[in-house]
């Protein structure tokens, strides 16, 4: 289970990416935003729990995500995490939408 070097490289990448784009993620249009929130609680909720407190997927509460670089979380959402049940959502979410979701999750305003 030691993924130290990989993880370190990811963090470095994430830090680079984060310093390149510091502005907040743009909010999607209202109807799409509602659909994304539904997706989050229903389909992400299938693994992470309806209230996102965790299940087979790890908790996605602000406490659980505190201190984790947003861009690495965005990358996890878009690409999944090989070797774990976290699937890639890129076919269904744009980069901006994933950023917006991470922002909501980290702020605890995903409801």
């Amino acid at each position, binding site marked *: *289970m030691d993924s130290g070097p990989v993880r370190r490289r990811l963090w470095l990448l994430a830090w680079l990416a984060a310093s390149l784009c510091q502005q907040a993620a743009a909010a999607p249009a209202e109807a799409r935003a509602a659909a994304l929130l539904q997706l989050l609680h*229903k*389909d992400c*909720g*299938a*693994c992470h*729990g*309806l*209230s996102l*407190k*965790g*299940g*087979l997927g790890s908790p996605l509460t602000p406490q659980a995500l505190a201190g984790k670089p947003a861009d690495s979380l965005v990358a996890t959402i878009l690409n*999944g995490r090989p*070797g774990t*049940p976290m*699937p*890639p959502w890129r076919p*269904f979410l744009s980069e901006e939408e994933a950023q917006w979701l991470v922002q909501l999750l980290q702020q605890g305003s995903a409801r």
Partner: protein
Amino acid sequence: MAGSTLATGQRTLARLLAPLLCLALAGCASTPLRGTGDLGVVIERASGSVQIVDNSHAQSLARVQGLGDLSHASVVFSPDARYAYVFGRDGAISKVDLLTARLVQRVEQASNSIGGAISSDGRVIAAQNYSPGGVKLFDADSLALLASVPATTGANGQPSRVVGLADLPGKRFAYALFDADEIDVLDASTPTAPKIQRFAHIGKQPYDGLASGDGRYFIAGLYGEDGLALLDSWHADAGVRRILAGYGRGRQALPVYKMPHLRGWSIAGDYAFLPAIGQHEVLVADNRSWAQVATVQVLGQPVFVMAEPGGRRVWVNFAFPDNDKVQVIDVPTRQVIKTLQPGRAILHMEFTARGDAVWLSSRDDNKLLVIDTASFEVRRTLPALEPSGIFFSSRASRMGM
């Protein structure tokens, strides 16, 4: 005879009493005397409520509220089919009386739970928990805690999450450990001091399990590799062996947007029908040798693969983004004979006890559908609030449910 000897006075009295009697009966009509053998419980995931439904008349009888987070909930029944035990995501067990439609008991026993089972004698409720990972045993009447069995520690240093808990004959339970690659058999003959038999290294990341309808076999599905792990409880000393190994045949695994669910309904006659993980296939195995005999191509990642009680056909629903469809496989020819599109987000299917109808839940259309299994016609739709699991009381007398 009695009528002919009835005095005029008595007859008048009877005539006077008759309307009163009718009134009394009408008063009772709102709660008629009934059996519970053909009732069901429907989980309404977002509102923390359940509906009690009556299959004989395809109607809803009542809604019971206050059951907490039911985003992943399952239900088992007392042997007399009067009580439903609902296991919620938030670690609570709620005991619901189907006759009075009341929540009669509720215990919060873990912070994150995934389901439970009831012992073969109906005396012990076992809950399988994610955090803290382990199994807890409760008295079925009072829900008092009898024993707590922490799971073997996983690679992350925490007690493993417990999946696939199923009852076996002789007051035993079997389950698998997602984080510790283990199958355990727990003997609850003395429920305050359960005995555990552990089988290690059974395969990577077991995600769910099932007991065959006769309670002989326990099978764990594996997320981390192509294959399943099988324990023959008649010959437990022989250990756990791999079945259907390498079913992906080296093909790239497709993403899985929802984990499949396994239960004893996978077995139809001589065959077991099991969801592949990461392949849009249903695997068919001989249910004695457990050799793979076929694969059936389906349109998405299967979630529930359920045999009709008669075993002639197998119904399949799917993970996101194909969760608006259901496919039906003919068992003798192993062909998909029907594709239905009954509603958005079909989360669950439940056959009536003898399979003449199947109830489906459509989460995103807020409805239940009752479908005739012979004609595939929708007999009835009923409103429900984001319904997920549907559980009929006929499960009360089945093993591995």
